[in-house]
């Protein structure tokens, strides 16, 4: 017998499937009779490699900036002026427009105490809000998914992209789907009913031995099969006349837009953009990356505005650290500490937030942070996703004034 999608989901939710994962319920198993649209959406953009914050949001009038960056400083005439002697890198034209339209908030000098300058360790700190000497089984958004109920059978969070599932989305009990591309997110051979039913039921078969790895794979397999069924029907939002730039990030955000507009009930989307580790020949590489970021976010917001989804969407961009104030001899910069975060969407309090970088007050040649990234997370959890943040962040952080609604 071939089951339709709802029947299929109910079959999963009511059958033995839920019992067979040793307490691990694949994310999309919760079925509600009515489809309620996920109220608020968060799109996370991870900038990998350590974005050079100083050349992104630039203290253009600070003479120390030019002194420390004799070859890399962006000429004042090219900087897109914002306010208070600060300005955007010229490649951030899209961000400047969003700021103008009241859709972009910049939080300056975001970091954390005793900064770690290893890419991998610092990224793990951002993802888990924990240090290396603590137990780190899950990420902050993974902990969030455990505390919210998915609606309509859809995953509460999705990762889109070719890389591994980000630590931020890992959970002890929920398997967040990772989608490389919608076209490839299908099981071949599933057209054949007999085969599909066999595969589905085999993934759900109870495993006698409570082997952690095996149960992890079994629940992930069941979750993958379910999510692929759902996305196949969800990915059919109408095309719009927004012109998307040609880039990997734009492609992923375009998929995000499609899924949001098609009424998928997912609240958190996670994408990444790599290449920010500019130790050498920084100018061209950095310009290209910032342009890619700014143009893709602009296209996303513009499409969501036309579909009426802008007010309920917030984009958050972060990187694991900023870069050293002093440039190196390879026309590049080495690993540093604090840097800017970006929030974009129809409900953000636009403008510059936090303290501007103080180039006269460095520690080991690096900028000192003035806003803890966990304060930004707390703001997003409490003021945007409307959940208590203490359990998720393991500590109370005060929320900032970053949203208008």
């Amino acid at each position: 017998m071939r089951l339709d999608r709802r029947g299929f989901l109910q079959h999963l939710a009511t059958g033995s499937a839920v019992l067979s994962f040793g307490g691990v319920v694949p994310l999309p198993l919760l079925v509600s009779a009515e489809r309620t649209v996920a109220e608020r959406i968060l799109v996370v953009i991870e900038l990998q490699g350590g974005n050079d914050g100083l050349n992104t949001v630039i203290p253009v009038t600070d003479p120390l900036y030019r002194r420390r960056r004799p070859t890399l400083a962006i000429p004042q005439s090219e900087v897109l002026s914002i306010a208070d002697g600060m300005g955007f890198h010229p490649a951030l034209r899209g961000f400047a427009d969003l700021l103008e339209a009241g859709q972009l908030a910049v939080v300056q000098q975001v970091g954390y105490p005793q900064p770690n300058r290893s890419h991998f360790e610092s990224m793990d700190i951002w993802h888990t809000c924990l240090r290396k000497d603590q137990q780190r089984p899950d990420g902050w958004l993974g902990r969030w998914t455990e505390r919210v109920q998915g609606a309509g059978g859809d995953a509460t969070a999705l990762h889109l992209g070719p890389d591994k599932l980000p630590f931020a989305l890992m959970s002890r009990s929920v398997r967040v789907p990772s989608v490389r591309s919608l076209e490839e997110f299908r099981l071949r051979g599933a057209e054949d009913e007999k085969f599909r039913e066999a595969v589905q039921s085999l993934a759900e078969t109870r495993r006698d031995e409570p082997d952690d790895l095996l149960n992890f794979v079994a629940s992930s397999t069941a979750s993958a099969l379910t999510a692929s069924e759902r996305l196949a029907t969800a990915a059919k939002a109408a095309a719009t006349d927004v012109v998307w730039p040609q880039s990997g990030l734009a492609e992923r955000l375009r998929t995000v837009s499609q899924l949001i507009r098609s009424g998928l009930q997912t609240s958190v989307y996670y994408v990444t953009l790599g290449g920010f580790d500019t130790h050498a020949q920084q100018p061209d590489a950095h310009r290209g990356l910032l342009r890619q970021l700014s143009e893709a976010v602009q296209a996303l917001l513009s499409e969501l505005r036309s579909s009426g989804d802008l007010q309920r969407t917030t984009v958050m961009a972060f990187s694991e650290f900023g870069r050293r104030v002093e440039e190196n001899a390879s026309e590049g910069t080495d690993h540093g500490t604090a840097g800017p975060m970006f929030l974009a969407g129809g409900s953000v309090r636009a403008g510059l937030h936090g303290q501007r970088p103080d180039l006269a007050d460095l520690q080991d040649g690096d900028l000192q942070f003035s806003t803890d990234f966990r304060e930004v997370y707390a703001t997003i959890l409490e003021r945007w996703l409307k959940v208590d943040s203490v359990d998720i962040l393991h500590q109370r952080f005060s929320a900032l004034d970053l949203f208008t609604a």
Partner: protein
Amino acid sequence: MATELTVQELWQPFEPGVDGQWDLAAAAHLFRRAGFGADRRQLEAAVQKTPLQVIDELLDGQEPPEYRSEMQTLATAAISGGNVEPLSAWWVYRILSTPVQLLEKTVLFWHGHFATGADKVTEPQLMLNQNQLLRRLAFGDFHELVQQIAKDPAMLLYLDSASNRKAHPNENFARELMELFCLGEGQYTERDIRELARCFTGWEVRRGEYRFNRFQHDTGSRSFLGATGVLSGEEAVQVVLRQPQTAEFIVSKLLRYFMLDEPAGQAELLAPLAQQFRDDGLQIRPLLRTMLGSRLFFSRQCVGRKLKSPVELALGLLRCLEGSTNAVELAKAMQQLGQGLLYPPSVKGWDGGRTWINSSTLLGRSNLMRRLITSETTRFGRLSLRDYLSARGLQRPEDMLSELQLLLFAVPIPEAASRSIIALMKSGSDTAVAEGLHALCTLPEFQLC
């Protein structure tokens, strides 16, 4: 049984009959880990010997000269077009065809350890040279391996050392030398990085070769990890390698690569092995011999306690069934599953373990298995899958299944799965057998090795 042993005893040689059986299944485990997998003939030959004899053959085996020269010819052809992708396919073909599996498995380990990506190093000759370097020194002296990697042009370009001048040293290589290659994160200070970077100033790449530019070399005194002086780059590498954590760090990575993804009580487990590695002057070969021949390796703590990498998944299937296929397409497919050979995701290489698995890679793995099994270009001992199995006297679905389980699975599959798969294969047609194998390869158990 193994859980009652002390840590010291876990590292003692596995004794067949005392610690467990040395049978076809145990030999299949050894070949899956110390290589990519073995077909029935190889397994039957293996159980005629002792485990240590088989391990020594794996460690000492030499590629026949004609195989080496064929690989050299193919590599030259692969790089002639000026891009790296064909070279990635060349390596896939090499892993599939080599008579010396453990060598390729270990080269793949070092490639992930000293990860260098062709997305940045676009010159195929340099990627090939590095690959050959890793092959030459895979079982050798870790000191020599690090010294040569430090001057390897692909590495110098990948970590920006090629433009490392004395006025403002570039810290990229110095950081990763300590964090990722030798000591592990947190075993040094930021000051150590800055001082160490000065030792490598003036190390350049000219016309594809390492060159020392004394005019760009910082000649002042530097001080890091307890050493002080006008230390050269070579001396600096020795200072790093002298740190006692080096042994723990390398042993811990090898343990997770060859033995088990999630070791419990790791520090205690590692200590005897790290001591051996130090006593042996950081020689790789004796370390691997101890690991692969240990009681622990053949115990339930190890068997089935690793998630297959894409390479282990795809090439494992082919090697166990004498398969051959289009290496170019396979190389691309593995890249999509997160393991493009010569295209590691970052200088940290592949994290392995659970990070291989997510909903996309699981669907992708299943789809790749289907493509491999049903593709016209895939041959099993030059035959179709069904003909290959029936040539071995396997005609009933039950017999086919038990043979496939022996060759391909580290852990048993549920009874219900056996029944479904036998039902799928029932008609005995080429398509039915392929469907059955595809369903088998979509089982969660198939992801373990």
